[in-house]
């Protein structure tokens, strides 16, 4: 990888390369350039993740001619695809070097900080939702219990906006989470569950399941689990998986799929569905 980056920088394939560098035992993001090419010695794959794609997109927007290299995990690549789809990252100016990260049946090894989430405490297990749980398992709780458990999680929110700030596919100038007409201000916890549901709705067709939000959450809210469900719904309803391919997300295409029917009110309703 070091050789590859060196070649890129020297040949001018990229003007800047964003990767991780070991500094005093901390792997930190670092911008490698021709000027600091000796730093490449410290280039590491890194076990922790920062949204390098966001940095790349910002740099690219500020410098219309710059070519940017990127050490990309699979989630980074997915995020880049989404950003490109939303006209937020010029992928023609962004080169990536793939990192070995997410586990697969072929390779057990994976350098991802998300892989072993801490075990949930007893109280959380009893009244909250285990971050490591499966969406299907959560769905098996009775509705009221499900709601209660989610509310327990949501009420821990300290409204730090960390989930949004670190999210690689959040790019709005004017964020709905700060919209006082949508979410009441001046209260903590923020209007639950509205705050989290608004964000969940905004993630539909966009979330690439990187888990950075949950990693950044000081209240340990199982955000990734929530957005995983969002992704599953989008996949089931619209056959769409964000970050894969170049199809525009379903909410950006006008028109309904003919097979999509409103959900019936209940079985045996007096209003027959057409």
């Amino acid at each position, binding site marked *: 990888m070091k050789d590859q980056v060196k070649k890129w920088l020297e040949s001018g394939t990229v003007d800047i390369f964003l990767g991780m560098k070991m500094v005093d035992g901390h792997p930190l993001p670092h911008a490698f350039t021709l000027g600091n090419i000796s730093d490449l010695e410290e280039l590491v794959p890194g076990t922790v993740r920062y949204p390098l794609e966001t940095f790349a997109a910002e740099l690219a927007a500020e410098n219309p001619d710059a070519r940017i290299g990127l050490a990309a995990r699979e989630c980074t690549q997915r995020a880049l695809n989404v950003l490109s789809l939303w006209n937020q990252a010029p992928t023609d100016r962004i080169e990536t070097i793939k990192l070995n990260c997410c586990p697969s049946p072929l390779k057990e090894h994976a350098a991802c900080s998300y892989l072993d989430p801490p075990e949930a405490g007893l109280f959380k297990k009893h009244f909250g939702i285990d971050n490591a749980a499966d969406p299907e398992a959560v769905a098996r709780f009775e509705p009221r219990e499900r709601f209660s458990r989610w509310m327990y999680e949501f009420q821990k929110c300290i409204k730090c906006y960390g989930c949004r700030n670190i999210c690689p596919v959040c790019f709005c100038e004017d964020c709905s989470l700060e919209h006082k007409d949508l979410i009441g201000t001046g209260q903590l916890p923020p209007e639950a569950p509205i705050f989290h549901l608004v964000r969940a709705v905004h993630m539909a067709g966009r979330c690439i399941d990187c888990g950075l939000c949950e990693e950044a959450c000081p209240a340990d809210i199982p955000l990734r689990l929530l957005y995983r469900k969002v992704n599953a719904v989008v996949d*089931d309803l619209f056959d769409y998986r964000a970050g894969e391919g170049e199809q525009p997300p379903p909410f950006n295409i006008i028109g309904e799929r003919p097979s999509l029917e409103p959900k019936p009110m209940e079985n045996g309703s007096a209003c027959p569905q057409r």
Partner: protein
Amino acid sequence: MTLKRMRFLQEVLDFVGLGGRLHMEWISSAEAQKFAQVVTDFTEKIRRLGPNPLHAFIQPDMILRPRVVAASGLKSTAAEKEDAKGSLPFTGKQ
């Protein structure tokens, strides 16, 4: 477009335990009877589901009393259970 959003929202609300409280129906301006029927049915359904569980949680000092919160609402109403049967497990592609 609306249909897409509503279908999506129905599933997500259901996932956090507020299922069955969002409904969408195509009714033309000439279908007054159908409109009345749908509204009556939906009102009736909401009545059976009981008050919005959210109200039980809106207390100013909630953050300090998570134990009370958590314990307060683990029981589903009969209607919610019934509704859950209809909507879960998630049926997926239609």
